[in-house]
């Protein structure tokens, strides 16, 4: 406390709120980042509604297959691992972006996109196997909820991959200009957000489904 008092005497105009944060935001478009965050939060609410409907329907088997009959946990564990690794490779892309290392940024983004593509491929393989077994979305309320929730997440990942590819072209053409850095930061939030949603999916759909 004594140290703090000494500092207070040195500082000419002590402020107790964040004046810098607002000022600071102008050069990277902090408004854009905050706005994109608000979008992500509303997307989270969309997922909440789909999670809720899955939760309500999760035991409506209509005499059809139960989670134990159809879920392959090793496949889900593989997919979870892929998505988790893709999160950290995107983190490496962001760390390479900061000092403006174009090649490294593009490399890590490409790795992230490939991991995302593997995730979607494994998911499509799983869907294909389920439909071949007769566990189609039309079979029961549980399966409708399952395909809607997991499919919605998969669509988001697909959109994320498309965005990464667009950014690879953008960086190739214009380099790591301020606008591209801002876009990459939004894309990063989007990608990490999808990983957070996946935590909810593997927990509530797969793991708790297998326990039921």
């Amino acid at each position: 406390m004594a140290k703090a008092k000494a500092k207070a005497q040195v500082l000419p105009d002590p402020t107790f709120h964040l004046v810098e944060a607002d000022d600071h935001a102008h050069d990277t478009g902090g408004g854009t980042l905050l706005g994109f965050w608000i979008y992500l939060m509303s997307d989270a609410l969309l997922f909440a509604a789909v999670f809720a409907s899955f939760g309500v329907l999760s035991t409506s088997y209509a005499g059809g297959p139960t989670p134990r009959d159809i879920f392959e946990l090793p496949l889900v564990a593989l997919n979870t691992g892929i998505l988790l690794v893709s999160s950290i490779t995107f983190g490496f892309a962001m760390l390479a972006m900061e000092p403006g290392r174009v090649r490294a940024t593009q490399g890590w983004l490409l790795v992230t996109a490939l991991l995302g593509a593997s995730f979607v491929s494994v998911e499509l393989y799983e869907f294909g196997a389920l439909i071949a077994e007769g566990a189609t979305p039309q079979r029961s309320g549980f399966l409708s909820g399952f395909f809607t929730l997991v499919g919605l997440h998969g669509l988001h990942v697909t959109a994320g991959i498309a965005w990464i590819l667009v950014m690879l072209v953008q960086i190739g053409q214009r380099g790591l200009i301020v606008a591209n850095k801002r876009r990459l930061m939004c894309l990063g939030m989007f990608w990490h957000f999808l990983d957070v949603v996946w935590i909810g999916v593997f927990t509530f759909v797969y793991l708790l489904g297998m326990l039921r």
Partner: protein
Amino acid sequence: MSIESDANLDQELHAHGDTHGHGSMRSYLLGFALSVVLTAIPFWLVMAGPPVTMAVAATIIIAFAAVQILVHTVCFLHVTSQAEGGWTLMAYIFTAILLIITIAGSLWIMYHLNSNMMPGMTPGQFTETP
């Protein structure tokens, strides 16, 4: 105390240059290591066959998911009380509250609806009702 931390924060914001809001190598690696552990334990619990009752196993799994979501939020999404003047954190908390109300509310209502309505809907009981 608040003056000192504000002064530190000020320096930090300047040091970050034009790309504030990104993480450090340390935060990404820490987040990744924690996530691997927090994912592996629930998967192991279910795949190896839970050594505890279903209810305990379910509680453990949900608790691990909640912790992992927080780890991702802090280490990967960098939501702190300082980021964007605290607005991202505010929006995050607001969303979390709405999310819990939506999901818990739906499950609660539909559980009671099912347990109260379903017996009357079965063919056997339908004939008995006056």
